[in-house]
C-alpha cells in the first residue's frame, strides 16, 4: 500500500511539474474590437498599437512581469544615474538583431529613434517621453539638427543628459511609444514603415488583413534565449464584444475580456482561467474651474457629496470596479489615500443643505464624449445630482469635437477616465492640474502648479511621494477640482490550456511568457 501511495505521489508530482513547464509551440488567438491599421507606436498612441508594439519592438527598460518595477530589456543592466539626477549612462546588450536577422542594434539606433520622435518634420505623437532631454526643445523647433543631450560613447554605450532632473524619466523609456527602431530599416522602408514594421521584439509581423486579422509569428532571432514560447499570436478584429465572447466559448479565441454582465456566468462555469488585475486608471467627474458656474467651490462640493460612488461603480461595472480613494491609482507611490472612504463620501443630506445655501443656480452643464444618447454613467450622475437639487444637463458631443474642446480647456464638466501611461503621480496630477491645463480642469492655482513643478524634479523618492500626497490633498479635499469615482480591474478569461499571460496594470496584455499546454 505504501509503495502504491509513493508511486501515486510521484505521478502527481510529475504531472504537476510538467503542467507548470512552459511548452513550446502553438498559436494564440486574441482579438481587438477595432483595427488601428498602422504599427508605428510613435505615431499612434492607442492601447492596441501599444500592445502590438510589445510584440514587435523592445524598449530600453521594461516592467518586470506583472509588477511596476523596471528591469533592463535591451540593456545589459539598469542605467547608472549621476548624483544630480541629470546624466544617465546606458549599455546595450551586444548582438541584438532586428527581425531581418542581419541588422544589429547599436547606440545610433537609439539616437535615431529619439530624434525621429522629436523631429519637427515627423509625426511623433509622444514627444513628452523625450522632452526632458537636454536640447529637446531646440531640436523640436528645428533650431538644431542633433539632440544635444544624447552622447554616443561607442556602438553599445551612450549617455542621455537631462535638462533638469526628472524622476520618472526611466518610466518614460518603458512606454511602448519609446520602442527602439532601426535607423537603416526605417530609412529603407520610408512611408511604408508604419505598415511594415521591423523590430527586435519577440514576434514579427507575418500578415495584416485590414479589419480581419493581424498575424504575428515568432522572431527566430529574438535575443532572449528560449523565448517566446508561442509560435505565433493572431489578433482577430471582432467589433462586437458579445460576439467575441461567443467565439471564446466556441473555443476559437484563447483570450477574452469578460463583459461585466457575463462575469458571474463565465466564472461559474469553471471552464476557464480568470485573470483579475488592478490596472492604472481612474474614472472621474471633473468640473472646469474656469466655468462661470462650476467655479463655485460649494457647487463642486455638493456634486462630490451627491454621487454615490459605491452604487455607481457596482451598477456600472460590478466586480470590475473598486471605489476610488484617490485620483492617482492606488499602488503608485504618491497616491493619496483618503482614509477608509472615497474623497467626499456620499452624503446627500449635506449636499442638499449646500444646494439650499447656493440658492437658485439654474441649470449646470456637462459634456459627454460621443454617442447620441446619454451613457449609463451619465444618466446615473444626472439622477444623483437631481436627487440633491442640482439640475445637471449633459450634452453628448461628437468624439473629435469633444477632444478638440478638451484640449482648448472648453469643456464645462465631464465624466471621463484616465489610463495612465506610466506609474507615476505626475502622469495624473501634472497632466490634469499642472501648467497648461490640457484636460479642461480650468485649474489655475499658482501655488499648486509650482509644487507640481518641484515634485516633478525631486530626486528623493520619499520626499517626492509626500509632495504628491500634499498636492492631491489640496486638489481633491480643498479645491474639489475633480471627483475620483472608481478604478477598473482587468477582467480576462483564457482557455484552460493557456498559461503565462500577463495582464499588466498599464492595460497591455503581454504574451512574451505565454504558452499553450
Amino acid at each position, binding site marked *: 500500500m505504501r509503495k502504491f501511495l509513493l508511486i501515486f505521489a510521484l505521478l502527481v508530482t510529475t504531472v504537476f511539474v510538467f503542467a507548470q513547464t512552459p511548452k513550446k509551440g502553438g498559436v494564440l488567438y486574441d482579438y481587438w474590437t477595432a483595427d488601428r491599421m498602422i504599427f508605428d507606436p510613435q505615431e499612434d498612441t492607442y492601447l492596441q498599437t501599444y500592445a502590438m508594439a510589445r510584440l514587435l519592438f523592445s524598449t530600453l527598460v521594461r516592467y518586470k512581469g506583472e509588477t511596476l518595477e523596471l528591469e533592463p530589456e535591451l540593456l545589459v543592466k539598469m542605467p547608472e544615474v549621476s548624483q544630480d539626477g541629470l546624466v544617465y549612462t546606458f549599455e546595450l546588450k551586444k548582438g541584438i538583431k532586428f527581425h531581418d536577422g542581419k541588422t544589429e542594434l547599436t547606440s545610433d539606433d537609439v539616437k535615431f529613434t529619439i530624434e525621429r520622435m522629436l523631429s*519637427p518634420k515627423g509625426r511623433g505623437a509622444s514627444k513628452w517621453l523625450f522632452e526632458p532631454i537636454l536640447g529637446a526643445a531646440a531640436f523640436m523647433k528645428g533650431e538644431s539638427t542633433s539632440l544635444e543631450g544624447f552622447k554616443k560613447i561607442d556602438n553599445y554605450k551612450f549617455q542621455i543628459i537631462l535638462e533638469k532632473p526628472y524622476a520618472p524619466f526611466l518610466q518614460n523609456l518603458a512606454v511602448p511609444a519609446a520602442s527602439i527602431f532601426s535607423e537603416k530599416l526605417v530609412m529603407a522602408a520610408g512611408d511604408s514603415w508604419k505598415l511594415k514594421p521591423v523590430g527586435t521584439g519577440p514576434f514579427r509581423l507575418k500578415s495584416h488583413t485590414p479589419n480581419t486579422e493581424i498575424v504575428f509569428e515568432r522572431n527566430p532571432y529574438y535575443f532572449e534565449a528560449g523565448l517566446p514560447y508561442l509560435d505565433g499570436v493572431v489578433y482577430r478584429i471582432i467589433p*462586437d464584444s458579445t460576439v467575441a465572447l461567443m467565439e471564446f466559448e466556441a473555443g476559437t479565441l484563447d483570450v477574452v475580456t469578460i463583459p461585466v454582465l457575463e462575469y458571474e456566468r463565465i466564472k461559474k462555469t469553471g471552464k476557464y482561467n480568470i485573470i483579475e488585475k488592478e490596472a492604472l486608471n481612474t474614472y472621474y467627474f471633473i468640473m472646469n474651474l474656469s466655468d462661470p458656474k462650476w467655479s463655485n467651490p460649494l457647487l463642486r462640493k455638493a456634486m462630490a457629496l451627491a454621487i454615490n460612488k459605491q452604487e455607481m461603480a457596482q451598477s456600472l461595472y460590478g466586480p470590475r470596479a473598486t471605489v476610488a480613494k484617490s485620483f492617482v491609482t492606488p499602488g503608485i507611490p504618491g497616491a493619496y489615500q483618503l482614509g477608509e472612504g472615497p474623497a467626499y463620501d456620499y452624503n446627500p443630506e449635506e449636499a442638499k443643505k449646500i444646494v439650499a445655501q447656493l440658492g437658485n443656480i439654474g441649470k449646470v452643464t456637462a459634456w459627454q464624449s460621443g454617442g447620441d444618447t446619454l451613457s449609463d454613467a451619465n444618466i446615473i450622475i444626472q439622477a444623483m445630482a437631481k436627487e440633491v437639487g442640482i439640475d445637471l444637463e449633459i450634452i453628448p458631443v461628437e468624439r473629435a469635437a469633444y477632444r478638440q474642446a478638451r484640449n482648448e480647456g472648453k469643456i464645462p464638466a465631464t465624466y471621463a477616465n484616465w489610463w495612465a501611461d506610466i506609474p507615476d503621480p505626475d502622469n495624473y496630477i501634472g497632466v490634469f492640474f499642472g501648467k497648461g491645463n490640457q484636460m479642461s480642469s480650468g485649474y489655475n492655482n499658482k501655488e499648486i502648479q509650482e509644487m507640481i513643478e518641484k515634485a516633478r524634479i525631486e530626486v528623493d523618492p520619499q520626499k517626492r511621494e509626500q509632495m504628491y500626497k500634499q498636492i492631491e490633498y489640496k486638489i481633491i479635499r480643498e479645491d474639489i477640482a475633480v471627483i475620483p469615482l472608481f478604478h477598473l480591474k482587468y477582467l480576462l478569461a483564457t482557455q484552460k490550456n493557456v498559461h503565462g499571460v500577463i495582464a499588466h496594470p498599464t492595460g497591455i496584455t503581454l504574451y512574451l511568457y505565454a504558452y499553450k499546454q
Partner: protein
Amino acid sequence: MIQYIVRRLIFSIPVVIGVTLITFILLNVVPGDPVLEMVGKYADPQTVNQIREQLGLNDPLVIQYLRFVFNAARGDLGKSFKTGLPVSKMIADAFPTTLKLALSAYLVAIILGVSVGIISAVKQYSFFDHSMMIVALAGISAPVFWVAVIAQLIFGLKLGWFPISGYYSVKHMILPAIVLGTRFAASIARYTRSALLDVIRQDYIRTARAKGLSERAVIFIHALKNAMIPVVTILGMQLSGLLTGSILTESVFAIPGLGRLSVWALSERDYPLVQGVVLFTAVIYILGNLIVDISYAFLNPRIRLQ
C-alpha cells in the same frame, strides 16, 4: 437607348459634385480636428500644426476642395491620412467583400422573397399567407444586429453549423448572407404579393384563365412578368442599399467590407478616405438606379423612354 444612358450619365455629374461638396462642407463644418484624432491624448499644438501643414489642412477650404475634385477627376482619390495608402486601393480592397456579401444576401432575398410572395398571393388569406406576412412584418421590424446575434448564438455557438464571425471562407459568408438577405426578403415578399394580387385581378388574366390555361401558366407566363415591374424597382434600389448599407451586418459578423471601412474613416476623421468612400457610394447608387430604369424599360415597353 444608348443616348438615354449617356444622357443619364451626364446628368449624374452634378449629383456627384453636389454629394462631394456637401460631404466636404459637413466634414469641415463639424468641429473636431483630424490631427487631434491622430496624435492621441498628448497633443502639443506644435506637432498638431506640423502635421496639419504636411496634410495640406492649413490651405484655404476652396483650395482643398478644388484639389480633391481635380485629382478625383484624374482618378486619384488621394492618400489616407492614417495609413498613407491610396484611398482607391483601400476601397478596392474592401469593396469586393461587400459585393460578395451583398450579392449572396440578394440571392437569398430574391429566392425567398419572390417565392413566398407568389405563394402568398396565389393562396391569398390561407394559413400560409397569414403566417408568412406576419413573419415578413417581423423580419422588417426586427433590428438587424439582434437577428444577427440570435443567429450567431443558435447556428454558430449552440449548433456549430457555421462560423460565428470573421471572413475566411465561403462558409463564413452563409450566416451573414442569410441574416441580411432575409431582412430584404421580407419586404420583397410583401411587394411581390401585393403586385401579383393587383395583376391577377386584371381582365387579361381572366381572359387567360377563360382560354383554359393552367393556373401555373397563368401565373408564371402572364401575371408574373407584369407583377415584377414594381418589384424590380425595389430590387434595384435594394441592391444599392445592400452594397452600401450593410454596416451593421459587417460589424456584427466582423466582415471587412466597405461599411466597416467608412465607419473607421469617419471615426478617425480620415478626410480623404471619407470623401473617397462617399464618392464611390454615390456612383454606385447612380449606377444602381440607372440599371433599374433600364431593366424597367425592358420589362414594360410602354414606359420605354425616348
